[in-house]
């Protein structure tokens, strides 16, 4: 059954009414006509609602419990997936899933955050918040991919790296930093896909790539809107304001040059139709992957470096416009 979010309540009321009518006297012509009218109205309401979502509403969609994540995409997009576990030093972090799989006839390395499905699985996966060993496992797999010349595809969906005592003791910051450093020069194509929640450094640790793709309603931010509101507004309930101020939606990030392409979602969000979402994703991924594979790796690395090197909004005395940012 479909889960409705708070802001979708008007849709739910109408959908429930249609449901009730359909069950009561579906054979009466008058009822049939009413159902048709209500269905048209519902479609219009849905269209209006979903084409004018606020950043905060989109945050709710990005965090939707039924939103597909890496485990789902692996089933829908790839064949012969074999999961590989552990960082060979401390443990296996279930918040990050990784392995090798076939995509359109080639082997790829697939790595991503997994928040889990259902309460038990969510707890086991720490709600998608990795510890250092998760990032180190990811790096181990990326090095394997490099060794065997397989492109890397990452799926990003995390509230952030886990803020805990063990995580700090085992070097959360070092693990993230090492991934950024290593991904910058990894000698295979990398495509990162932000599928849900791109939570700060914990997301970026899988996000340095030749192409960064972002699902329409995904978010990507330096801090969660709640965290930002607590610090800058002194009030966590100002999260909707912070969500808007942080410019964390796919359109904004495309405009800032942080994201290379936005992948449209089914109406109402990816959770409404996993198969359609996966098909759309496969199409975009396939095009980017083929383009990257056609390039000599040294060109790719030079472009990757240049892309990040240009990311800045700075002014020098004689220019009041940004030096490198695309015009807003």
């Amino acid at each position, binding site marked *: 059954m479909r889960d409705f979010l708070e802001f979708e309540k008007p849709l739910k009321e109408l959908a429930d009414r249609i449901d009730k009518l359909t069950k009561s006297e579906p054979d009466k012509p008058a009822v049939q006509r009413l159902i048709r009218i209500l269905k048209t109205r519902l479609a219009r309401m849905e269209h209006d609602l979903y084409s004018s979502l606020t950043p905060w509403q989109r945050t709710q969609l990005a965090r939707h419990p039924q939103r597909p994540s890496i485990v789902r995409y692996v089933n829908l997009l790839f064949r012969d997936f074999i999961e590989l576990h552990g960082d060979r030093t401390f443990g296996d972090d279930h918040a990050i899933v990784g392995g090798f799989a076939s995509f359109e006839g080639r082997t790829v390395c697939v790595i991503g955050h997994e928040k889990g499905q259902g309460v038990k699985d969510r707890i086991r996966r720490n709600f998608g918040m990795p510890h250092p060993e998760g990032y180190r496992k990811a790096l181990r797999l990326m090095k394997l991919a490099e060794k065997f010349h397989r492109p890397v595809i990452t799926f990003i969906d995390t509230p952030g790296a886990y803020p805990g005592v063990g995580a700090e003791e085992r070097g959360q910051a*070092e693990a993230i*930093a090492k991934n950024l450093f290593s991904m*910058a020069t990894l000698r295979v194509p990398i495509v990162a896909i932000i599928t849900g929640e791109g939570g*700060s450094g914990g997301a970026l*640790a899988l*996000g340095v790539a030749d192409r960064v793709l972002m699902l329409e309603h995904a978010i990507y931010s330096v801090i969660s809107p709640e965290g930002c509101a607590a610090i*800058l507004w002194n009030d966590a309930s100002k999260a909707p304001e912070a969500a808007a101020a*942080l410019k964390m939606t796919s359109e904004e990030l495309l405009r800032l040059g*942080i994201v290379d392409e936005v992948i449209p979602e089914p109406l109402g969000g990816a959770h409404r139709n996993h198969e359609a979402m996966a098909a759309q994703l496969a199409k975009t991924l396939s095009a980017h992957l083929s383009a990257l594979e056609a390039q000599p790796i040294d060109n790719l690395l030079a472009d990757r470096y240049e892309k990040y090197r240009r990311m800045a909004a*700075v002014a020098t005395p004689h220019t009041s416009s940004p030096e490198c940012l695309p015009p807003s």
Partner: protein
Amino acid sequence: MGWFTKATSSDTEKGKLNIVEGMWRKCPHCRAIIYRKEIERNEQVCPKCEYHFPLSVPERLAKLVDEGSFEEWDAEVSPMDPLGFVDSQPYRHRLQSAQEATGQKDALVIGKGRIQDIPLTLGIFDFRFMGGSMGSVVGEKICRAIDRALEGHLPFLLVTTSGGARMQEGTLSLMQMAKTAASLAQLDRARLPFLSLLADPTFGGVTASVAMLGDVILAEPRALIGFAGPRVIEQTIKQRLPDGFQRAEFLLERGMIDAIVHRRHLRATVGTILRHLTVGR
């Protein structure tokens, strides 16, 4: 990211009042009340517990580089407001007050200098400027310092004190982590040494990028260093944090840093390390 900024900047503001108005100063680590002159005579180090009080950039340079050798680069590179960010006050106003208070355009000073006659490029964070947070200018200047290190075949030394990535520049601040790490990878390939010195406090996106990527990582005694701020961790795990958690000594014990160096020995230690890594190769 930036979780730590608030707690520490308000602490520093309180501390600043003491510095300006009082003859006495409270050590934030051991809580001892100490005669201000005594701290100054002791290189801004607490005589009771060796906590290293924050230094301004000029103070840091005076203690670190050979006299008269420092030459600043790109002082005029200034922040913009790419998101048009407004919280309780506009980002532009915050920048303006920080610029007036510090006389600097942003939170990092870069340049070249010599330490024990060894030429090198340097970057020094200024915590007084919006908690030393890393936005576009800080990231850009770190990369420019690295560019010049590559051109001149010089080592790079970065002194960090920062609450993390700057929230007001949003995801663009996050990208500075990737950007600086990518530049450091170039330095790495050129086999030029990168020394990272962590001063109190170093947190968030700065720790999780440049700070922890040093070929050699040094820290000042008692410095707080971490990814997540202690308050955030406490709220998450709902337990008291262990004694000494996230202090430099705690990180050394867990293998996360190479050495803790007293300010008094810093210049000599950096000189020795640089000679070991560069001379006669």
